[in-house]
C-alpha cells in the first residue's frame, strides 16, 4: 500500500549555512506547514534562494536540523517534493521531451510518461507547444513549462524561486493562475518573489529574510499590516538600505 499521509510539516531548527567561513544563512526555528502557501520575502542577496535550496535538500546546512514527519525514507521525501528554479533549466529536447524525461527519472513507464505529459500540458494550456524545442520558447513559456513539469510529478511540496520575475504582466498573470490551480489541487507551495502585490494576494504565511537571517515570520496579514521589525517595515515601504 502506498503511504498517503503527509510528510509535512517540515521543521527547521538552528539551521546555519556557511561557505568559506562566511555565514550565508541563519534560521533559528521555523516550519513549512501542510497545504499552506508560504511566501519568502527579502531584498536581493537576502538568502531566499539559499533557503529554498536548503529546504529542498540541494544544499546541506553546516549545522542544524531539518525534519520531515518521522517515518518517511529519504527517497520518499525526495520523490514527494519538486522545485522550480529562478533560472528555469530547459533540457535540450522538445517541450514534451522535458516532461517525459522528468517523469522517466521519477520512475514512470513509457506509456504512463506520455499520458501524464500530454495530460499536464493540456491542463496548463501548453499542448500547442508540445513539439517545440524547449530552449527556443519565450521566457514566460519556459517558466510555465518549468512549473508544469514540476507539477506533473505531483509533488506534495513545491518550491518556486521567483516564478514571475522577468515576466511581463500577462505572463505573470498566467503563472499566477497556474499557482492557483496547484493550490486548489492541494499542493503545499513555498515561493520567493519580489512582487509584493503577488505576495499579498497569494501568501498565507510570510518568511522575511534580511542579510541571510530569518528576521520575521507569521501570517501574511499580520506581516503586511503590522510588521514587527524595522527592516520589514522599511522593506514594505521600499526604503530598505542593505
Amino acid at each position, binding site marked *: 500500500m502506498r503511504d498517503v499521509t503527509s510528510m509535512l510539516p517540515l521543521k527547521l531548527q538552528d539551521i546555519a549555512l556557511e561557505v568559506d567561513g562566511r555565514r550565508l544563512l541563519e534560521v533559528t526555528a521555523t516550519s513549512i506547514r501542510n497545504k499552506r502557501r508560504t511566501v519568502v520575502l527579502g531584498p536581493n542577496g537576502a538568502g531566499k534562494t539559499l533557503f529554498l*535550496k536548503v529546504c*529542498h535538500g*540541494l544544499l546541506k546546512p553546516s549545522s542544524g536540523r531539518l525534519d520531515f514527519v518521522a517515518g518517511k525514507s529519504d*527517497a520518499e521525501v*525526495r*520523490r514527494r517534493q*519538486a*522545485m522550480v*528554479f529562478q533560472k528555469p*533549466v530547459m*533540457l*535540450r*529536447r*522538445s517541450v514534451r521531451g522535458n516532461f517525459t*524525461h*522528468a517523469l522517466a*527519472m*521519477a520512475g514512470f513507464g513509457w506509456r504512463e510518461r506520455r499520458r501524464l505529459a500530454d495530460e499536464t500540458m493540456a491542463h496548463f494550456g501548453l499542448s500547442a507547444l508540445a513539439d*517545440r*524545442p*524547449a*530552449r*527556443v520558447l519565450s521566457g514566460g513559456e519556459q517558466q510555465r513549462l518549468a512549473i508544469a513539469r514540476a507539477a506533473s*510529478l505531483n509533488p506534495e511540496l513545491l518550491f518556486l524561486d521567483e516564478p514571475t520575475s522577468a515576466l511581463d504582466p500577462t505572463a505573470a498573470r498566467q503563472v499566477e493562475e497556474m499557482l492557483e490551480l496547484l493550490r486548489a489541487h492541494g499542493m503545499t507551495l513555498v515561493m520567493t518573489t519580489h512582487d509584493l502585490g503577488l505576495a499579498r494576494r497569494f501568501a498565507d504565511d510570510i518568511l522575511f529574510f534580511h542579510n541571510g537571517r530569518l528576521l520575521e515570520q507569521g501570517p501574511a496579514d499580520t506581516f503586511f499590516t503590522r510588521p514587527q521589525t524595522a527592516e520589514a517595515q522599511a522593506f514594505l515601504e521600499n526604503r530598505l538600505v542593505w
Partner: protein
Amino acid sequence: MLQDVSIISALWKIISGGDGDFYSIILLSLEVTLTAVTLAGCVGLPLGAMLALTRFRGRLPIIVVINTLMGFPPVVAGLVVFLLLSRSGPLGGLGLLFTPQAMMTAQFILVLPIIVALTRQTVEDLWSEYADHMTSLGVGRIGSIPTLLWDARFSLVTTMLAGLGRASAEVGAILIVGGNIAGYTRTMTTSIALETSKGDLPLAMALGVVLITITLCINGLAYGVSRIGAKLAGGR
C-alpha cells in the same frame, strides 16, 4: 604545368580502375578508421562522462595526462602496439601484428584520449547547468550520464569528428603495425607515403586528393545532420 596534368591523369587512372587495388584500399581505410573511431566512441563517451562527474583522488593528474595524450605522437603509439603484438610481446600469441585489427587497435589508442578529453569538458559544462534540476529529480551524478550525453549530442558529434580526423589523417602508427602489405593492410595514407618515397608524386597527390575528398564528405554529412538536428531541438 606538366605537374597538374599528371595529377589529373593519375587521378583519372586510379578512379577509372586502371590501378586495380584502389577501391579495396579505400574500403580498407574506411573500415579501419570507422571501426577504430566507433569503438573509441563506445568506450570514450561514457568514460569521459564518468571522469566529468566523479570525484576521486588522482582525478586531476589523470585529466592532465589524458589532455596530453591528445597530442600523442602516432609513431610512438604505433611502436607501443607493435611491441605489445610482436611475437615476443605480451600479446604476441594473438598473431595480430601486420593485420587490419592491429591498425584498428593503434588508431583506437590514438583516438580514445581525444574523445575522453573533449567529452569530459562538454559533460562537465552541461552538468553545471543541469546539476540542480537532476538532483531535484533525485538522480545522482552517475545516473545523469545518459541524460547528459544525450543533451550534449550535438557537441559530441564534433568530438567524434575530431577523433575521425585524427584517425583518417594518421599514417605513422598504421604503417608500423600494419606493415603496408599490398592488398591486405595498405590504406590510403600508407599508399601516399609509399608512392612519395618511390617518387611517384602525381599518384601520391591524386591519392591525397581522394582522401581529402572522402574526409570532407564524411565531415560535411555529419555536420549537416547534427546542424539539422540541433535546429530541430532548439540549438545548443
